């Protein structure tokens, strides 16, 4: 019984981590069809902002929840103005540009901070489910992931900004004719996606090995989740995280970590074969979730 509870808790944690890793990417890709290959480095920058500002004496919560999204959001804003805005609609070019950006960011961070940095440890400590110890911090990770997904959904669904954003994504020319500046919306959306990546990096920093190349370990999972989710950003990313998170966690627990990774990739392969446009884009689920966000 306690073991079942523990496994369920681990699954929830694993899903939450996937949501954190992929939501920022989902916002940028889903809204603008820009494939941000530097997404892993955006996460890394979030982690570094948290670690460096916390070590400099900033309160850990402020460092994680405020400093990290703010810094990476501003960084994303600059990136959009300097590179991305010239490349909208040119998928291959944006991939190349963001890949170059990821190399540059890794190099820059290595130059400034070296290859290792003193990390921060997770607050709270552990708690027991039956006879099993697990981490209280995981509750926090789950809470942040849920809040992030709910926040993005609420903004898109109920605010004027969300309405304009959705309109721009559907038909930028018509939106422009109605007096909206698509340039402005793209910029804000890119900054929002970057900020979400920064927040995710910050929240995961205390339970990760923080190094300039940490982004590489996250990027594949984030992409698989976003592509598996399909066009509806929040619902798609959430459902894909749920599916992939559960499968890899259960496979890891009952077999080995190697097979856990294999199972995730297999699940993604099968799913893309059956639902080429992702969960919310094709098949029965696509029709059911056609109007979802």
């Amino acid at each position: 019984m306690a073991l079942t509870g523990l496994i369920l808790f681990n699954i929830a944690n694993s899903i939450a981590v996937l949501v954190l890793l992929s939501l920022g990417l989902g916002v940028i890709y889903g809204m603008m069809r820009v494939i941000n290959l530097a997404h892993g480095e955006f996460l890394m920058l979030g982690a570094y902002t948290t670690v460096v500002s916390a070590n400099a004496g900033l309160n850990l919560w402020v460092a994680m929840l405020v400093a990290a999204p703010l810094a990476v959001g501003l960084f994303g804003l600059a990136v959009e103005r300097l590179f991305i805005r010239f490349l909208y609609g040119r998928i291959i070019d944006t991939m190349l540009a963001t890949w170059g950006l990821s190399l540059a960011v890794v190099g820059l961070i290595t130059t400034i901070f070296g290859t290792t940095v003193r990390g921060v440890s997770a607050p709270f400590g552990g708690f027991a489910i039956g006879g099993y110890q697990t981490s209280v911090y995981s509750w926090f990770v789950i809470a942040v992931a849920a809040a992030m997904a709910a926040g993005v959904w609420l903004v898109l669904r109920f605010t004027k900004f969300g309405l304009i954003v959705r309109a721009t994504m559907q038909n930028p020319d018509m939106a422009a004719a109605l007096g909206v500046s698509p340039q402005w919306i793209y910029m804000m959306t890119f900054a929002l996606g970057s900020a979400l990546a920064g927040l995710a990096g910050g929240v995961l920093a205390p339970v990760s090995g923080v190094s300039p190349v940490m982004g590489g370990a996250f990027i594949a999972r984030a992409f698989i989740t976003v592509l598996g989710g399909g066009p509806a950003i929040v619902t798609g990313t959430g459902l894909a995280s749920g599916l992939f998170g559960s499968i890899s966690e259960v496979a890891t627990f009952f077999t080995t970590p190697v097979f856990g990774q294999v199972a995730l990739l297999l699940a993604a392969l099968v799913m893309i074969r059956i639902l080429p446009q992702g969960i919310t884009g094709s098949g029965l689920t696509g029709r059911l979730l056609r109007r979802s966000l």
Partner: protein
Amino acid sequence: MRPFRPSRRGLLQSAATLAGGALAAPLVARHALAADAIKVGSLLDLSGPIGSSGQAMHATIRLAVDELNAGGGLLGRQVELVNYDTQSTIQLYSQYAQQLALKDKVAVVHGGITSASREAIRPVFDRYATLYFYNVLYEGGVCDRDCFCTGTTPAQTVNKLVPYALETWGKKAYIIAADYNYGQITAKWMGKYVRDGGGTVQATEFFPLDVTEFAATISKIQQAGPSVVLSALVGSNHTAFYRQWAAAGMKDKIPIASTTFGLVNEIATIAPSESNGVVTSYGYYEELSTPASTAFTKAVRAKFGDGLPYISELACATYEGFKLWAEGVKKAGSLDRMKVTEALETGIAVDGPSGKVTIDHATHHVVRNAYLARAAERKWDVFQSYPDQAPADTAAVCDLIKEPKLSKQFVIDVKT
């Protein structure tokens, strides 16, 4: 007699020859000058995921070269270090290895960090007859007369760590290791020593290097309830295991012994609350307080500052490996590969920061000290030392005295 009528082609040819000769002249001259310095090659990752290991190694080999030059050099000549940053990329290892052997024509190459990189460049140096030193602790078994391995192998360290863990904490072990040749082979050695000590291995799990989530593993370990966790996890992604382990409140419940923890910079980067109590065994620790060790760390820190990562066995063995080679050259009185190899095979020894290091003829490995230490407040508390440990694992399969023509890595058949 025909009048001399140079053809156009002939004229062009002789002009080209003349010009070529004029251009080549300074090249030849420069070469003659450069021959005065002995070139020593170094292949280390100074950037990328393995960069933090390579930086400390690069620092100590530069220190060794500088000290040698300050003392008058080698065979009356100065020594010049030719280093290429292999950027944690195997492809660059092969490329630069050829460059060192064929273009720079170095007398010896020190380098390689991961076992994969060593196996990429060892054949290159065999082919082009270049002496090669691998100064890193590894899984053991390399048997190659053109190569010397100066780091520790499992018989020297794992064989100290595992018995200590079994005696101190109990007989049930849970092994977690990185999923590539080092982790796979080291896990086998761990299993062997656990059984030799009368213990049982509850499970052995391997982790690809990009795994960052360890919640499921932490649950499985608790389900098994071992008396000790033996870890051969590698790389900064795997550091997450120790943090998630501590976050789950497991650190004071089940102790961890590791063959890799702290080799890079973990002890400085993760909090004491996450690292305190982890026990490791290496051939050297920066905290070692012998006069030779203190003088060495002082010299390194004075030259390269406190920004340099931890001075681990990797950095120390690189320094000692270079010194061993220099002693070999002195004894041989020559840079010739065969003469230096034969000189080294006489059992040359140096007194390094870790203590006495002696070349073992039969295996081309070294007899050296091993230590046990416990992490305490971002430092290693060295609490046990084992003098003059022989590379018994490799010695069981490799005898270069009898079969000097061997050039392979034995995968030592550990009974599982």
